[in-house]
């Protein structure tokens, strides 16, 4: 955001019904520092690779909210802003992680009171029989009050093929709360872009109540490599130089295959590489192992992957349980 001092022009301040004791000028920069946001943004830059448009968008949103807050101090009326968002993007692009950050940002800015994140899917909102849905949805809303409600794969709420589906009931309650209790909770809907589009078309009420549509781009190959290295780092592993080159190749190949889930696929690939490293270490008989032996993943651990054999992992029964595949 702009780092300049910003003063409201005097005529604007006079025209407005200024609150008693209202300051003559606001230092947005100082506000920004005091809100604790710089730490969150620094954390965001540090922990999350790529996602430049998202980070910019988050900063813009934060700037808007800061300015809104400054305007309030001058008595310039602003309605409670609509903060409901929709996160669209392919699997594994960091939607949930970002929702957590969003909750923290909104909490620092004082737009949600507690700043906790409640993650739900259709199962948690929709009941199995008549009269079961409303209490379930209300229970979830009660839990999310004062924080952020993150509805993952929100399009499952609406099932046009079954006209007796109870999802509609849940949607109606959600819409009502999104409208009437805007200061109590913020709803974030997440899902794959194309299906979310269809969902919004079928439920125009949602589209108009969601102010921010944020699209998550897929990661580039270099970004994926960096993500992989960071994941290994947190687990106290590292790639040998050859392994790094091979892994870059692996990413390029894997990206072309079906059921690629960005960050999550990388994590699964690395989990399998760790498995192979463990069995390699176990089978060799060259005396005691050093710390280096235990931490370094060699090229052969990655080369053994079926991706290099030309068959996708998922079709040969290799564990892909963590991946949510492409829309069926």
């Amino acid at each position, binding site marked *: 955001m702009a780092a300049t001092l910003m003063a409201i022009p005097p005529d604007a301040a006079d025209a407005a019904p200024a609150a008693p004791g209202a300051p003559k000028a606001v230092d947005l920069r100082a506000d920004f520092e005091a809100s604790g946001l710089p730490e969150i943004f620094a954390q965001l830059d540090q922990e999350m690779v790529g996602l430049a448009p998202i980070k910019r968008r988050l900063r813009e949103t934060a700037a808007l909210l800061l300015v809104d807050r400054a305007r309030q101090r001058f008595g310039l009326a602003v309605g409670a802003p609509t903060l409901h968002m929709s996160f669209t993007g392919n699997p594994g692009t960091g939607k949930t992680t970002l929702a957590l950050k969003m909750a923290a940002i909104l909490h620092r800015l004082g737009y949600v009171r507690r700043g906790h994140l409640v993650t739900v899917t259709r199962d948690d909102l929709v009941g199995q029989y008549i009269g079961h849905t409303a209490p379930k949805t209300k229970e979830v809303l009660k839990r999310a009050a*004062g924080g952020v409600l993150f509805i993952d794969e929100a399009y499952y709420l609406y099932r046009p093929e079954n006209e007796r589906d109870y999802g509609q009931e849940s949607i109606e309650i959600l819409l009502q709360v999104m409208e009437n209790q805007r200061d109590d909770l913020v709803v974030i809907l997440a899902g794959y872009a194309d299906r979310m589009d269809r969902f919004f078309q079928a439920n125009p009420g949602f589209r108009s109540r969601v102010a921010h549509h944020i699209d998550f781009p897929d990661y580039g190959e270099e970004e994926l490599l960096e993500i992989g290295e960071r994941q290994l780092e947190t687990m106290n592993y590292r790639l040998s130089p050859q392994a790094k080159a091979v892994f870059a190749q692996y990413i390029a190949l894997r990206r072309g295959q079906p059921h690629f889930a960005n960050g999550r696929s990388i994590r699964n690939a690395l989990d399998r590489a760790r498995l192979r490293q463990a069995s390699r270490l176990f089978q060799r008989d060259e005396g005691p192992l050093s710390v280096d032996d235990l931490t370094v993943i060699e090229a052969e651990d990655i080369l053994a992957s079926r991706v290099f054999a030309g068959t996708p992992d998922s079709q040969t029964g290799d564990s892909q349980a963590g991946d949510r595949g492409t829309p069926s």
Partner: protein
Amino acid sequence: MRLTQGTFSFLPDLTDEQITAQVQYCIDQGWAVNIEFTDDPHPRNTYWDMWGLPMFDIRDAAGVMGELASCRKIYGDRYIRISGFDASHGWESVRLSFIVNRPANEPGFALERQESDGRRILYSTRAYAAQLPEGERYS
């Protein structure tokens, strides 16, 4: 006669804002918040009817206040109280309980004297409202 049971009962009725603050205090202490209602004001009537389940995993008072609003919508003519239950070891008991809703008209209690053997007198109190069957007492 104004019913005085539980905490704050000698103060003027709490506003919604004050109730919210008290509920938030309970939540911050990690207590489960309950909403209970009754139309029998007798002081020995310990077990009131519960409105829904105890609310364990709530982070903000807004959720409880929503439940209170819906309870008032149906049982607005009865006594409603909020209690905070501390489940931690050694307590396992209600830590705070206060009335958040009362009927418009509270007729009070009659003192009944019963003469028993040897001119001994037994005293008991009976709520005037309790003469009517349950559900018709304050409407």
